[in-house]
């Protein structure tokens, strides 16, 4: 865990520092009372302090053999593809509309990540997209219409 603690501690120190500096810029005191930057500054400093303790502890601690960070490296591609699918959904939702984007999203995930049979992929994607459209419309959720106009 030594290396992982060092990396994460440095990250949280940086995170705390951003808020502490931001807090300073927003002002710590206004007309004798705490300003909008006071608490972000204080909590940012505490975050840095705590991360520093984790960092020092990790440095002192003897290195023990830890588990692999990515034990199943072959599956990382699935992870990356699912993130691509999420970004794609966000990019296409407004222009293509809910039904078409949802259908394409499910098609992409089922075909490329799950590697399901085409019959299952097509029918599952179509059914889910249409049924969820009916459900969300009934629940009065506003959905983007896009090029299909529904």
């Amino acid at each position, binding site marked *: 865990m030594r290396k992982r603690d060092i*990396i994460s501690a440095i990250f949280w120190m940086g995170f705390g520092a*951003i808020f502490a500096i931001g807090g300073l810029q927003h002002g710590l005191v206004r007309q004798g009372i705490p300003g909008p930057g006071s608490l972000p500054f204080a909590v940012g400093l505490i975050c840095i302090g*705590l991360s520093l303790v984790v960092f020092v502890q990790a440095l002192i601690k003897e290195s023990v053999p830890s588990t692999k960070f990515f034990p199943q490296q072959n599956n990382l591609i699935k992870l990356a593809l699912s993130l691509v699918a999420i970004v794609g959904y966000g990019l296409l939702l407004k222009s293509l509309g809910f039904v078409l984007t949802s259908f394409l999203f499910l098609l992409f995930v089922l075909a490329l990540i799950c590697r399901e049979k085409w019959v299952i992929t097509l029918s599952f994607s179509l059914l889910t997209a249409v049924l969820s459209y009916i459900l969300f419309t009934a629940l009065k959720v506003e959905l983007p219409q896009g090029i299909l106009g529904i």
Partner: protein
Amino acid sequence: MDALSHLLLSFDIALNPINLFFCFCGCFVGTFVGVLPGLGPAASISLLLPLTFALTPVQAIILLSGIYYGSMFGGSTTSILVNIPGEASAVVTCLDGYQMALKGRAGPALGIAAIGSFVAGTFSVVMLMVLGPPIASIALKFGPPEFVSLTFLGLTLVTYLASGSMLKALIMACVGLLLGFIGSDIVTGVERFTLKLSVLTDGLGLVPVVMGLFGISEVLFNLEQGYDKAEISKTKILNIWPSCKDLKDSAGAVTRGSILGFFLGVIPGGGGLLASFVSYAVEKKVARDPETFGKGNIRGVAGPESANNAGAGGAFVPLLTLGIPCNVIMAILMGGLIIHGVEPGPRLITEHQEIFYGVVGSMYLGNIMLLVINLPLIGIWVKLLKLRYSLLFPLILFFCLIGVYSTENNVLNIYVMMIFGVVGYLMRKFEYEPAPLVLALVLGPIMERAFRQSLIISSGSPLIFFSRPLSAVFMVAAITLLLSPIILKMIGKERLQLKE
């Protein structure tokens, strides 16, 4: 109003056909979520939160709380039949429940889990109704300093009871508070840390954060680990009702589990998980035959299952009376109520009676519904376990996407959720718990407002938190808890030196 009129009021609200329908939906979805490994109650409540925006606050909280206690009820099924806990607090049930199933006693194990959950659930609702109003009336006397110190104590308890490193949990609480500062300042209106993004002006949305940390990260983790189909125990479930001997053996365990579970549920950071573990330890300790635990002892199922359900009911006490969520699910419920324009706190019982008594009444009825949903329909729930994860996870992703979009009809929320999904996945790898972060995120803005109000009252002197008796008690307790690991370490070293 006396207790009877409160009870009548709660049933009057809960028996309204629409409320009854949402109570049933919540219990049904909760059981579904509880049975299904890989979809916890936190993710599913946040998933369904946007769908409740079209409902009234009472209907919304009845539905969402139903999911919570329903998941506690259903979580035992997979533990007993497959040795895979449907949700975290059913982990302990695996120990004896699965062993009972292997010995051909899956039916009585499922039966006693359901009966214990029903008894404990009902007990916790009675306690919520009895304790709620007096606690709220005491809390009404709280000023901003008391609220700050109580919240501080709550957050400290959450980090103290974290299953991993307390230091890391404290960092997570700080991160949650810092994320809570994003958005317009409540006192001056100045925009802070928004990166000039419109989606951040009103602060970081709770729904994208929770869906990312719990829903997306879970999917990413399962995808990386590779998903296998669960092996269902081949045992036929013949008789679901436990024998008289089973009931006699379990009576003590159910009683102890109910009482213990309720009080552990009330403590911030406690809840179902801690309650079930403590109950198992207690049962083993008081048993005349501790060696039979882990080999299919019915008390090892009855105690923890009662405790986690009582804990789920207990968790509503601080939320509905003090406005302090003591676990992630309560934090999401609190976020949901705030979105609906209802601020949980001491005034809730007087100003929004229908919400408090609606929850109470729906929990009474919900526990009966759960008994009906779980026992006779056990066959259906078992079949659900055959649902392939390769079909389930695209659905989880899809509902997360549409759920998070519909909160504000803003595509940027999808990206916020994705970022937190990756953060949650990495946090799991680096062994950081997301619970303190979410709690601090919800409590952060409220705590900041009270903190600054307190300092305005005291003209900038922080001593106000120690000069008022109740606030001082909370503060001293929190500081003692924070320092306790260091103190204990020092005492340990001294003892070691003395021995040497």
